[in-house]
């Protein structure tokens, strides 16, 4: 009897230990991959960082890496304009769609709508880019040449990140406990009063996380933007001006870049990582602030 108990006890401790070790290993590998990416980027960009002063990446007069001019700033603004423009469109659109699915549509309609959005999420980015290049760009070209522009990039990005936000917001909305809704109904709140006063505040964290995910995808999207944005290195002075994003720059030039040119492209990769890190930190702040309320 005692022996039997002991054996069970022994076994469970050993399994625990193995499980613990496995988890630690998994976590370490995940963290190590991130560290290795950073290390790799630093290593590859080191030849350029060594003899090109950092200031030159923002003070040079243009981006012509083969003529020793390395201004990355227009591409930073290009990335920021395109992704914040699409976020501006996506946030109201996405939250409205999620609210419609959760509270206004009939169950059948809601299901159908969700399938549709999931389908949108499954379309590869290159298909969006191709459609943009052959349909949207010529359309805008008839109105404001050359067509490939900041506006096209924003429109295509909006379509691409919409499902991310809709699906995460929807998940956050239906995760709001039923008691909250019943209590709100018992207090005699209207449907909109309940959504505005109870559901949205309760689901805020989930929605913010969804916005962050969408923003991350907008900043990192490459192929679709490369095909529709025009890729001219300049600060956009209007919605119809072509722009180049950091990711598009790397994809366009990496294949044939050598020496300093190649190293500078890795510097722009570092910059992109920095941008995403700032974004994550900002979202962390947001989350905390509202959590404390």
């Amino acid at each position: 009897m005692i022996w039997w108990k002991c054996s069970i006890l022994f076994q469970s401790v050993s399994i625990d230990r193995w499980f613990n070790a496995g988890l630690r290993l998994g976590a370490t590998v995940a963290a190590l991959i991130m560290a290795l990416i950073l290390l790799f980027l630093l290593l590859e960009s080191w030849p350029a960082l060594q003899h090109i002063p950092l200031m030159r990446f923002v003070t040079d007069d243009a981006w012509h890496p083969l003529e020793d001019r390395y201004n990355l700033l227009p591409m930073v603004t290009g990335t920021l304009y395109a992704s914040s423009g699409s976020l501006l469109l996506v946030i109201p659109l996405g939250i409205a769609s999620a609210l419609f699915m959760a509270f206004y549509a009939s169950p059948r309609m809601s299901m159908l709508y969700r399938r549709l959005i999931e389908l949108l999420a499954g379309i590869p980015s290159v298909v969006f880019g191709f459609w943009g290049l052959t349909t949207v760009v010529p359309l805008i070209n008839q109105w404001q040449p050359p067509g490939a522009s900041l506006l096209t990039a924003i429109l295509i990005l909006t379509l691409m990140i919409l499902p991310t936000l809709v699906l995460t917001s929807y998940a956050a909305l239906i995760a709001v406990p039923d008691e909250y809704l019943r209590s709100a109904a018992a207090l005699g709140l209207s449907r909109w009063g309940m959504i505005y006063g109870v559901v949205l505040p309760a689901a805020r964290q989930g929605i913010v996380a969804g916005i962050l995910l969408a923003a991350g995808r907008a900043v990192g999207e490459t192929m679709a933007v490369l095909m529709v944005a025009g890729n001219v290195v300049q600060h956009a002075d209007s919605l119809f001006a072509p722009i180049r994003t950091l990711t598009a720059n790397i994809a366009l030039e990496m294949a044939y870049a050598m020496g300093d040119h190649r190293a500078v492209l890795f510097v722009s990769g570092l910059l992109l990582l920095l941008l995403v890190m700032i974004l994550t930190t900002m979202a962390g702040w947001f989350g905390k602030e509202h959590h404390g309320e």
Partner: protein
Amino acid sequence: MRFLRRFVWVTIGVLMLTGLSAVSIASSHKLVLTGSSTIAPLAVELGRRFESLHPGMRVDVQTGGSARGINDTRKGIADIGMVSRAMKADEQDLQAVTIALDGIGIIVHASNPVAALTRQQIADIFTGKITNWHEVGGKDARITVVNKAEGRSTLELFLAYFQLKNSEIRPHIVIGDNQQGIKTVSGNPHAIGYVSIGAAEYDAQRGVPLKLLPLDSVAASVVNLRNGDYPLSRPLNLVTRMTPTALAKRFIDFARSEQAYDLVEMQYFIPVSVD
């Protein structure tokens, strides 16, 4: 614990074995190619097929520009150098074999009434001195200039021919590969761009609304490129020392043979006929 220790030893053993086998492959027959980044993608494909035809062989391709190809071949670091231009007078100590031709065609939309442009007009359009099609005999519409991204070989050849610097060009759209250029110009009736002739001719024959403009009154076609009449072109050479190794010679013969034509055409180059 004992099991864990055994597991670790087995893992180390497996790692060592795979490492050893990698070393033993590397020490067998190996061919090193260095040089032009224009030829490199083709050389990688050629190498892959060569390896499958000759098991145990390894073809290693490294880029670094035509100049590196020349240098490495002279020093014996590389078996074969890749040089994407005609050989210079002081390079007669090396043996060059042309494996393919590369040419660039100026393309506009098929509906564009402009039939030809002079060299000066093309340079003026790309540098932003001419901004409307009616200045060169076309419709009254703003010209959309489509340029290639920095570092691309087509851009280099284009700039060299028109004696321009990339910073002088005022583009409205910057593209990456040939296909993107063709899609952009065929979707914009007022655009002008340039791509590899092989790619443009292939698509134009298959109904894509695209027109290749003649250059110096020579029609831009694969035929004119092959017989040497078309001016905006260059040979793609593989160079070796005067007495190439047997292996290098076999690779170059393979690259020029009909077995490799489809690979050459896949990169939008024009194979040279050996007969």
